[in-house]
């Protein structure tokens, strides 16, 4: 017989032991079948949603939810690269303006059938304008998780000083208030309209009846009559010195709001928390929120944008039923209320608004009224690119490099170029 080296023997024994262990552990996991749901969420939502996993796992033995938190600034890249690399999660939080893009990629699972058989989720429990953002060409792809829109933040103490006990209901009044505030020396400017935001002119255009894009969203409609009328109001604020033109004049929004640089500011729900924490305690009674002004006071509150995040299931998921159950869990009114108290994100469910009294008390009541009158931006994958372009040309308008007609004509040319692919795809169908 050949001589076996003792080391070889030891190695073989150790290896076979490891292999044995591995095979038993494999068998163990396959018999109990732990299913893992991959859930991606962004920013603060991603941090806070972890606390809800245990409740869901307790109700669904054998299911684990793996939450991956992605910073907002990297979320879009991460999702697209995951799609290209074929490694999507089962469920994901998706900003509702991103939904058209992922529908174009054919990456999202339609949810209409899930809704029909669900006793937890139905459209009646949601703000209709928000619900609509999840519906692309008639099919539903997402369930609202939390909601977001823009309202008016204003210094109620200063407005009272010039005789306004209530917030402006029309843009005309908003201009009037701004003028009076500056004339009586209470503030340096009336409104703060950050130049790196396209929201206000878009809202103004929508209130004037502009569809933003026309002909089945294949062409830009920025140089059309209705959008230009809205833009004119926007321009007034800058021409009459009612809003600061330079970004550098307001380095810090909260400081500017507190130190009377301006008294009116259009922004979203995240600033409720910021205002509460950044403004001193004695100033907390000095500010309030109100829905956006309208063109005529009988139309008040004026239209605003439908924002927020939805929950979506990817078509590549192997566990769609379980994923739906996780969405249902996160959509329960009590879970939604709890999530609000953790994050400050406004709940999507109307039951939670009622239960928490959010629709009655300030400063959230303004959001409640606003959310009943919201509309989505055009549902095309190119929208963010178009919005960036709009922002770029707005700067030219504000600094009077071009007239608004000329600038919007040039913008339409650029937008039509961006949409050329969309027209080509449509013509091929």
């Amino acid at each position: 017989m050949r001589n076996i080296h003792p080391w070889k023997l030891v190695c073989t024994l150790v290896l076979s032991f490891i292999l044995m262990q591995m095979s038993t552990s494999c068998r163990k996991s396959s018999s109990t079948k732990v299913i893992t749901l991959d859930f991606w969420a962004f920013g603060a939502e991603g941090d806070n949603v972890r606390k809800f996993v245990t409740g869901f796992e307790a109700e669904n033995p054998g299911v684990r939810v793996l939450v991956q938190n992605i910073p907002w600034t990297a979320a879009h890249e991460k999702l697209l690269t995951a799609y290209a690399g074929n490694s999507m999660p089962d469920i994901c939080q998706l900003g509702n303006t991103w939904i058209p893009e992922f529908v174009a990629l054919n990456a999202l699972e339609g949810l209409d059938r899930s809704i029909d058989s669900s006793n937890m989720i139905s459209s009646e429990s949601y703000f209709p304008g928000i619900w609509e953002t999840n519906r692309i060409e008639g099919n539903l792809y997402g369930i609202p998780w939390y909601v977001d829109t823009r309202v008016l933040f204003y210094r109620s103490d200063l407005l009272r000083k010039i005789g306004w006990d209530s917030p402006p209901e029309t843009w005309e009044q908003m201009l009037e208030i701004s003028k009076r505030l500056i004339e009586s020396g209470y503030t340096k400017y009336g409104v703060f309209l950050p130049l790196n935001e396209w929201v206000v002119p878009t809202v103004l255009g929508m209130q004037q009846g502009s569809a933003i894009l026309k002909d089945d969203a294949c062409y830009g409609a920025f140089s059309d009559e209705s959008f230009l009328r809205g833009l004119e109001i926007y321009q007034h604020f800058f021409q009459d010195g009612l809003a600061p033109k330079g970004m550098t004049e307001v380095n810090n929004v909260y400081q500017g709001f507190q130190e009377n640089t301006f008294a009116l500011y259009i922004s979203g729900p995240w600033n409720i928390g910021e205002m509460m924490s950044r403004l001193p305690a004695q100033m907390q009674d000095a500010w309030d929120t109100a829905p956006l002004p309208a063109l005529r006071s009988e139309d008040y509150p004026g239209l605003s944008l439908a924002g927020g995040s939805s929950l979506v299931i990817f078509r590549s998921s192997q566990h769609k039923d379980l994923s739906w159950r996780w969405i249902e869990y996160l959509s329960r009114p009590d879970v939604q209320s709890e999530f609000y108290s953790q994050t400050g994100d406004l709940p999507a469910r109307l039951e939670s608004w009622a239960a928490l009294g959010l629709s009655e008390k300030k400063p959230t009541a303004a959001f409640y009224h606003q959310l009943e009158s919201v509309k989505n931006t055009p549902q095309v994958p190119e929208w963010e690119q178009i919005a960036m372009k709009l922002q770029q040309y707005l700067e030219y308008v504000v600094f009077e490099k071009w007239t608004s007609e000329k600038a919007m004509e040039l913008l339409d040319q650029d937008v039509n170029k961006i949409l050329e692919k969309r027209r080509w795809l449509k013509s091929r169908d």
Partner: protein
Amino acid sequence: MKGKRLFKVWMSPALFLAPALLLIAVFFFIPVVVSFLMSFTDFDIYSLADSSNARFVGLENYKNLLSDPLFWKAMHNTLYFVFIGVPLSLFVSLGTALLLNSKLIRFMSLFRLAYFLPVVTTLVAVAVVWRYIYHPSFGLVNYLLSLIGVSGVDWLGNPNWAMPALILMAVWKNFGYNMIIFIAGLQNIPPELYESAQIDGAGRWQELLHITIPMLMPTTIFVSIITIIGYFQLFAEPYVMTQGGPMNATLSIVLLMYQEGFRWWRMGYSAALAFVLFLILFAATLIQLHLQKRFSTV
């Protein structure tokens, strides 16, 4: 029979080289060729869903690029960064190299280590610290400025100051590397030259002008090529610190390429951008190599 011998001669080197060549082919040549071809298509988000949605568009991407104000903005920013940052970096690294090479200095290796430390530190960690340093109300820079009675600025939030702030950080982070190369160059200068100059009665300043700087020329050219190539590829600093803002003041070519490619998934456009950058770098290198040849024959 000759063919067989030739095969035998080439067999072993080919086999030894094969793994490296394969890696270079898969991870370098094929991607470069594919992205070059891609720069003539309109590969975008629709094509990601179905590659038949991509079209051959010829030079359209390049044409659009040249008429895109964002591209010129990024080009302007990148050139700003290169033309201010590279000379500054060379100046600082040559200065510290001269100081460290001086016989008067003690603890030379300690200083050398200290100056080299930023080079080996992860950029993201550095960026987080520098974000605090530049903070408008709690930052070190504004605090120091307030001591001498200058009111500070919002370094990263102000379009005029964001780029200088990034240049300062980049120079601080990278000069140690060039400094080491300069020290090596300085130590290669034969001491006899200095001795004979001293006999001829040359002062320190004349020594620097007539011996040190001419003798360092090849090193300087090498260092400046490397630095220019590196600085043209400005990406991580603005990506981590400012995301290209405020108002695109720190948007660099590579950051624009990344945003076009991975945020909007306009791969064709982004690939065209990459090749424009390649051409610029290629031209810059050619010019410098030409200069190098001229100086080395003198």
